[in-house]
């Protein structure tokens, strides 16, 4: 089991950062390489740029503590847990943390690598041009 974490400091209010990704169907807007998704209840199926489909189960979407937790349920994963937290640093200053725990280990590395692009895009959207 491998567990990795990436974070980014964002010059925006925590609620503004949270608003970017709390809607499950918004993921193509902020996760590079995801072209589209469908959402039914707590099941989200994403489709990547190269046409790969991955089903996910959304476990937590908590606006109070600003925590979004999901797991990829593709059979290739023996385990996956993705956690996105927004932590208030100041009124216009947030820390966004994206954690990935997965088995096989190689998949954790691959997904975590992609989450860095997601964090950069969240920052871009939150801070604006």
């Amino acid at each position, binding site marked *: 089991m*491998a567990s990795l974490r990436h974070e980014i400091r964002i010059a925006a209010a925590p609620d503004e950062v949270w608003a970017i990704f709390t809607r499950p169907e918004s993921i193509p807007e902020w*996760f*590079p*390489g*995801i072209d589209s998704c469908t959402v039914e209840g707590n099941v989200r199926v994403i489709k*990547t*740029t*190269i*046409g*790969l489909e*991955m089903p996910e189960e959304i476990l937590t979407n908590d606006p109070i503590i600003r925590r979004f937790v999901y797991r990829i349920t593709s059979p*290739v994963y023996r385990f996956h847990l993705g956690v996105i937290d927004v932590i208030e640093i100041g009124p216009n200053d947030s820390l966004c943390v994206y954690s990935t725990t997965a088995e*096989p*280990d*190689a*998949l954790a*590395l*691959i997904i975590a*690598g*992609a989450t*860095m*692009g997601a964090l950069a895009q969240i920052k871009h959207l939150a801070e604006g041009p």
Partner: protein
Amino acid sequence: MGRKILFITTDQQRYDTLGVNGSTLARTPVLDRLASEGIRYQRCQPTSVVCMPSRASMLTGQFPSTHGAWMNGVPLAIDAPSVAESLHDAGYATALIGKAHFEPFMDPFGRFAENSLASLGIPTIEQPWFDGRRGVHRGFDYLEFATHGVMGPLHYAKWMAANHPESLSGFYQVVDGDLNVNAAGGGDTGAPQVKINDVPREWYHTDWVAQRTIDWLGAQSNDRDWFCWMSFPDPHHPWDPPKSEIGRVPWKDVELPLNYPERASEREALLDQKARHWRAWYDGTLVSNYEAPAKWVPATMSADQVREVNALNAVEVELIDEAVGRVLKSIEERGWGDDVDVIFTTDHGEFQGDFGLLFKGPYHVDALMRLPLIWRPAKTTKTTPGVVTAPVSLVSLAATFLSVAGRPAPAWVEGDALPQSDDEARTRAQDATVTEWDSALFGVDVHVRTIVTKEHLYTEYGRGTLHEGNEGELYDLRDDPLQRVNLFNDPSLANIRATLHERLLAHADRPGDRAKPGILMAPV
């Protein structure tokens, strides 16, 4: 018109796999002839012994500690310098056909252009360039990719799936269900990464790369020079060449490599002279890097497995030689024969049984570091054929391409153009090369620096998970060409060690801007 450039690379090919370099297994008449017509380098070193950092050095003319792609899985920055951009600016048509690997393969989101171009169905894509402009991807007008099999989103895999789906199952599955390098054995001996592949030869990736190169060249006009990087994925594992060809080199007739003592106790005695991670990997107590199967223990490898791997490797080398011959013939038929510089090399070597090991890792010896390199200058230059014995490096390729194109080397290039003779190397005081290794994967980090001169191969291990920072290896290449006797702690060689240490320090302190080290995005 100027000189055109055909840059041919293979992947993971040892120096001694060419006939002209002493191979007794593979017959390589085409490459041998190129060597006889041009310059053959007897000691060419990579900047890294794994694919991505080494290939990035070919493109940028920089060491990994400068270009920032410091280990496999770390992408080369999209706006890193590129010799292809400079050649494009010089008016060259530019193509890369085959294996690129400047960006990670394991990319389910298709975030990297190398993995998305085939799906997008376009020959290149606009990207930021080093100098702030935007232009074609890393300077290439045309890109068509292949790697070591038929899985994934690259052009060759898609071509096979669309045209020959019945042959997909013949290929070895490079990674296992955990996405680790597969340890499963095959062939006659159960050697890892070996499979008898019933794919017809003409559908195998070696011939595909050659044919796609011929097709691209055929589409070029006579009034424009070109730079074509033809990049074969072989003879990198898996060793699964077409079954129709494996009779060329019967494995049972293969002599064991000079550096593979058949007695385990002798192998172990050799390994015990080296830094501790050598023996730990051999015994299966350590996995320091992704590039070898995590579930395979080198100590379990039999002599027959070494024979079979070497036989299949030789078959793959012969197929490459013949593919190069086809491409050169097409160039001759086009009337370009006198105007083309041909440069042949590889990115790094392969153990192939040396010291009882296979594959590669943080082990800086000739098996992984001594590479074939041939430069056949355009015949119009009337270059005197010769052999260069001075150490040279792949970091010199970018400046060499630019010199062929009549362009000055830009400030970002760290390597001078290749010398064409030992006299020229001496005049330039070009007498040593450096190879770097840095890796950090799942809690294990390894840092290695090696300098090679005509006389010595000297390695220092930096502080990391496996080393205290005071270990090293020193081999006398004149008395010990197989690097069996580690003289690092020999007090009589203290002066030599001190001199080589100073030269490594000078390398670390060399002038020039460094890119910020890239971030690990995938295992490979």
